[in-house]
């Protein structure tokens, strides 16, 4: 029996088409505002998807991903100040961020809420330590990176490439046997051990991967904002942002967090402009509503709509399902 392909041809085609469209978009006279918003969206898409690998695939909700985000950003920033080409710096940032997860991996042995709260600790401690590590992060004043206007413009395609790769990886992981094992771990760690799956190993791997990708996105983010400071980059609000993006888009789905990231970026800019005070409260209400009514966020909503629509179409084309009359006595 042949297994279903990791990436069906049609899906791959649609994906490639989508990326191609996005890639040529700037050539079609895109406003600078839209250009920047999209760039930022791509970075956040990558981050949210990477967060989802831990929060949605493995089922360990992290409130401390800002630690890896910040590490990636500042490592990349430092290397840029030393004159290295940006892409290399971003990759280095990602690598270091991935390695950063190693010393904290004992916390991975924790179940559910214990892990989540421990990640708050990771985030907080990172923020404090790195804020005072002036040699690395420039302290409270932060770093100012050598990014030219042209380079910033080109970030669009780098960010798009990153987002595309991470999205592709998300789809493939979800459909692969690796993803299956992750879901088993998420469902029941002990039962997973009973069928031979070592939760510890898989969690370590995913945490490192998730951290590395967030680190790379942190690097690109740093180039985008040009000026970074540790209080913000390592802040709790940064960690919260990733959680929100994934929840709004759909925790556990392959691409839901990408949607969530776009919504988040758009909403954020609009809200900060019109109602800066309502910003977090609105997300809080959104999270509550989602958890209680539609745990799969936007993806779940779209899914329900699609199903309802399909039922309507079916009825219109095939008519209402007819009731078959009961068999006469004696008939089978």
């Amino acid at each position: 029996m042949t297994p279903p392909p990791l990436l069906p041809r049609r899906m791959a085609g649609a994906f490639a088409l989508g990326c191609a469209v996005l890639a040529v978009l700037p050539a079609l006279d895109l406003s600078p505002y839209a250009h920047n918003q999209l760039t930022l969206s791509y970075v956040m898409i990558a981050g949210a998807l990477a967060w989802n690998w831990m929060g949605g695939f493995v089922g360990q909700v992290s409130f401390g991903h800002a630690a890896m985000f910040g590490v990636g950003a500042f490592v990349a920033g430092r290397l840029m100040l030393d004159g290295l080409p940006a892409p290399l710096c971003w990759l280095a940032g990602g690598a270091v961020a991935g390695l950063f997860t190693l010393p904290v991996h004992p916390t991975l042995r924790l179940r559910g809420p214990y892990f989540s709260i421990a990640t708050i600790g990771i985030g907080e401690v990172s923020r404090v330590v790195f804020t005072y590590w002036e040699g690395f992060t420039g302290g409270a004043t932060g770093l100012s990176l050598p990014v030219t206007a042209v380079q910033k413009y080109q970030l669009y395609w780098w960010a798009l490439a990153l987002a595309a790769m991470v999205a592709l990886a998300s789809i493939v992981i979800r459909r692969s046997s690796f993803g299956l094992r992750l879901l088993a771990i998420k469902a029941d760690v002990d039962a997973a051990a009973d069928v031979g799956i070592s939760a510890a190993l898989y969690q370590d791997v995913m945490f490192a991967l998730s951290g590395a990708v967030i680190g790379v996105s942190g690097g690109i983010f740093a180039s985008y904002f040009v000026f970074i400071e540790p209080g913000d980059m390592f802040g709790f609000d940064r960690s919260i942002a990733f959680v929100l993006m994934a929840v709004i888009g759909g925790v556990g789905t392959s691409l839901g967090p990408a949607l969530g990231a776009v919504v988040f970026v758009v909403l954020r800019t609009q809200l900060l402009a019109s109602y800066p005070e309502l910003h977090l409260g609105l997300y809080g209400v959104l999270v509550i509503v989602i958890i209680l009514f539609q745990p799969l966020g936007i993806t779940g909503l779209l899914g329900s709509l699609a199903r309802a629509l399909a039922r309507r179409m079916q009825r219109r084309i095939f008519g209402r399902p007819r009731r078959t009359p009961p068999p006469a006595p004696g008939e089978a």
Partner: protein
Amino acid sequence: MALLAARGLTRRFGGLTALDRVDLTLGEGEILGVIGPNGAGKTTLFSLIGGSIQPSAGEILLDGRPVTGLAAHRRVRAGIVRTHQIVRPFANLTIFENVMVAAIHAHRRTTGHARDRVAEVLELVGLADRPERYPGALTLAGRKRLELARALSTGPRVLLLDEVVAGVNPAEALAFAQLIRRIRDERGVSVILTEHVMPAVMSLSDRIMVLEYGKRIAEGTPAEIVADPRVIAAYLGSEAGQGAAS
């Protein structure tokens, strides 16, 4: 040499000795039944052999090689797998995926081979019909079959069945018993099972071991065990035991 041997297995929980220097041997292709009153230590024994807990003392040998230190997931690779009294299917995976995740992981086969194996195992336990459903759609008996299928697909040499028949109706129980016998006959899997349903254990087991208060008090063929006064006493109280002895 016995396939599986446990020597001096002891497990203490704080002040309570759940299992006290229990010896156990399982031959190749043998079905061993473990019985005893509630609290006798049967589930503890299973957890020790399965690897979810470590013994306070004693050792476990598979093919003469010690496996005592191995964690549960390693033991599965070594060939020892257990099912649970309270079944725990992966609720977020389909029936097929439930079995699949065990098959690929235990033997690192290519996905194609694993799928064949999964189909075959599902056929054996009788769940081949609509495997794209979720475990929630199954009855208890169905979920127990799923648990069994999942354990089987890891290709075990020793299968630990913890009260697999509990809670199902007599017709199902009979079907299960036949299934277990088939598994042993057709696949050469050795089985240790524990049950409260006496007829099932008696008819299936080649040998029976009786536990009481964590100690092994008797071992032998079903016929011998049924007549053993110590066993009768353990189950029914000492007067009944004395009655049988006289």
